[in-house]
């Protein structure tokens, strides 16, 4: 077998593909964070908890109501998004005038509460969520066995990521949003309901976390810990990509997934910290992140 960098080429390709799969999760989650930071100026620490909530709502739909994976893919983002709207309306919207730190502390507290509730109710071992029949099984690609479900996750995440990018960067709605970030007063003067715009943006970004939760449920155990395991990495990705940059978070998410995958091959012990090493390097060389612009 041909070797690249001291490992069989087949193994290397397999690891790259796995990295891409994890990367697409990272991209989906960091995208939501980037939207929230870019539009609302809030560092949403509850994002991981909301992702976990998404997975749990999918599990509850299945176990209590018999509603399966495909309807969940639509219902869960709506439910989690609604929770987000509630959070924004009742709590976050009151903090916009204050320092970032208040939003961070509020969302951090919310994350602890949400996680605590699920932990008390369901323990930490996690609940099983089956892969839908049509997506079970896999293909032998020659260099690795690719479960169909993981392939579906890449495709679904990429569609959602680029759809979001298109919405924000290329549509009128997105233009209003970006304008509202630059100058609220002016946009308001044009008769646009800015607070509503903010609420919608937050609800949408939180719904993205909900979708990611549904996609993750069949791969990982549905566990109260799944949010905190991933959120720190996702924050690092947003910082590396440049705070608030949408394309930056998508590309960095995929890139970090791949780098992590390679680390797992060559130096597995370091796989949990490689993203932070990367973050440190990027911050030294480009303090605004790879795709970020200095904020005024």
């Amino acid at each position, binding site marked *: 077998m041909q070797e690249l960098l001291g490992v*069989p080429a*087949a*193994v290397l390709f*397999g*690891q790259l593909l*796995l*990295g891409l*799969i*994890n990367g697409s999760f990272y991209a989906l989650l960091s995208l939501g964070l980037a939207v929230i930071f870019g539009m609302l100026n809030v560092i949403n620490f509850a994002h991981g908890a909301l992702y976990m909530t998404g997975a749990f709502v999918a599990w509850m739909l299945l176990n209590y109501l018999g509603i399966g994976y495909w309807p969940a893919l639509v219902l869960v983002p709506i439910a989690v998004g609604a929770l987000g709207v509630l959070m924004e309306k009742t709590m976050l919207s009151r903090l916009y005038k204050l320092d970032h730190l208040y939003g961070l502390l509020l969302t*951090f507290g919310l994350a*602890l509460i949400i996680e605590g509730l699920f*932990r008390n109710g369901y*323990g*930490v*071992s*996690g*609940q*099983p969520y*089956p*892969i839908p029949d049509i997506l079970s099984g*896999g293909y032998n690609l020659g260099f*690795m*066995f690719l*479960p169909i*479900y*993981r392939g579906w996750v890449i495709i679904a995440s990429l569609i959602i990521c680029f759809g979001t990018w298109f919405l924000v960067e290329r549509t009128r709605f997105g233009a209003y949003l970006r304008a509202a970030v630059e100058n609220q007063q002016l946009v308001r003067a044009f008769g646009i309901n800015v607070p509503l715009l903010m609420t919608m943006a937050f609800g949408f970004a939180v719904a993205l976390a909900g979708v990611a939760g549904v996609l993750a449920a069949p*791969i*990982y*155990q549905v*566990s109260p*810990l*799944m949010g*905190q*395991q*991933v959120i*720190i990495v996702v924050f690092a990705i947003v910082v590396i990509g440049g705070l608030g940059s949408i394309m930056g978070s998508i590309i960095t998410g995929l890139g970090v997934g791949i780098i992590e*995958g390679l680390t*797992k*091959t060559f130096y*597995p*012990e370091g*796989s*949990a910290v490689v993203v932070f090493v990367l973050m440190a390097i990027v911050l030294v060389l480009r303090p605004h992140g790879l795709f970020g612009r200095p904020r005024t």
Partner: protein
Amino acid sequence: MRLGKTALLGAVFALAAGSAHADISDGVLRIGVLNDQSGLYTDLGGPGSVEAAKMAVEDFGGTVNGMPIEIVSADHQNKPDIGSNIVRQWIDVDGVDVIVDVPTSSVALAVQKVTAEKDTAFLMSGPASTRLTNEDCAATGVHYSYDTYALAIGTGKAMVQEGGDTWFFLTADYAFGHSLEQDTSNVVEENGGKVLGVVRHPLSSSDFSSYLLQAQGSGAKVIGLANAGGDTTNSIKQASEFGITQSGQRLAALLMFITDVDALGLDVAQGLTLTTGFYWNMNEETRAFADRFAARMDGQRPTMVQAGVYSAVAHYLKAVAEANDDGGKAAVDQMKKLPINDFFATNGTIRDDGRMVHDMYLAQVKTPAESTGKWDYYNILRTIPGDQAFQPLSESRCPLIKG
């Protein structure tokens, strides 16, 4: 996460510091249950272990030689520094007389140093590393429910004898994982098998596909999972997703608790072979305890860690009552003199290196068809007698033995 936990811990300390200074001479026996109460090992020990300790105290009558017994508990978050700080605080300020449970070998190793130094009894039900009765043994420590040697002898040996003679390990990268990998490798090699490779992953990983792919590439007949809790369940789940078991490789879940089987569901877990020190559905006595436990724990059946906590605390109380001394070494010396006979262990004895020797069981997870309901999960394949299950005293590297 860290910020919040630190703040919480601060609050716990503040509360603890406010309570009265006391020790046994103040007429109270205090039991400190220390374990993971929020992370990946919560369900196997956690609040269940605290409840088991309470049951042991209640069954003992709530007092020892006329002195009331109190239970305190805390979350060590699987961090050795936090664990040893709590234990110091408990012993120095709060008058705690015995530390119980402490899963996560790295934390237990740190606590063992503190309790040895402060002459406080340490009853280990949760941790697995054999270092606790070898290099790091102490006259005040009792390693109670199981250890990595017993797991290796049980599951490792059984799988080699069934033809699984080439192994690849997925190892949690800390004291417990290393110990389990080492002990199992020894057993595999002694029985004519061969270890083809190892990959060490960080504790509490969520994605194992990359490691599993490396294990698959190695061509080993058996993939040994030298990890625990959520790491094990995620490994098993993803192994089935990547078609690893279908392609002929076998998984050896070297440490698996009944709560892990419950979390996976029998569809995924069926057929796995595992070693355990306790199964609730073995006889009248074990069922009676499990039913009482379940009634207090939302229907959950006890793991071997939780059942071990009950047994260890009950035995400790008996010893303290007889010796009328709660000094660590005095109490443990008395524990060593008495045999243990309860639902957990028959004729269990505590050796000079601190190892509690009792029978272990090789079990296989039932198929969904065989199971009669929730928590009916194991077929017991055979009993591994205590003298075979644990490392012989003659091989111990414990300084207390060498004199």
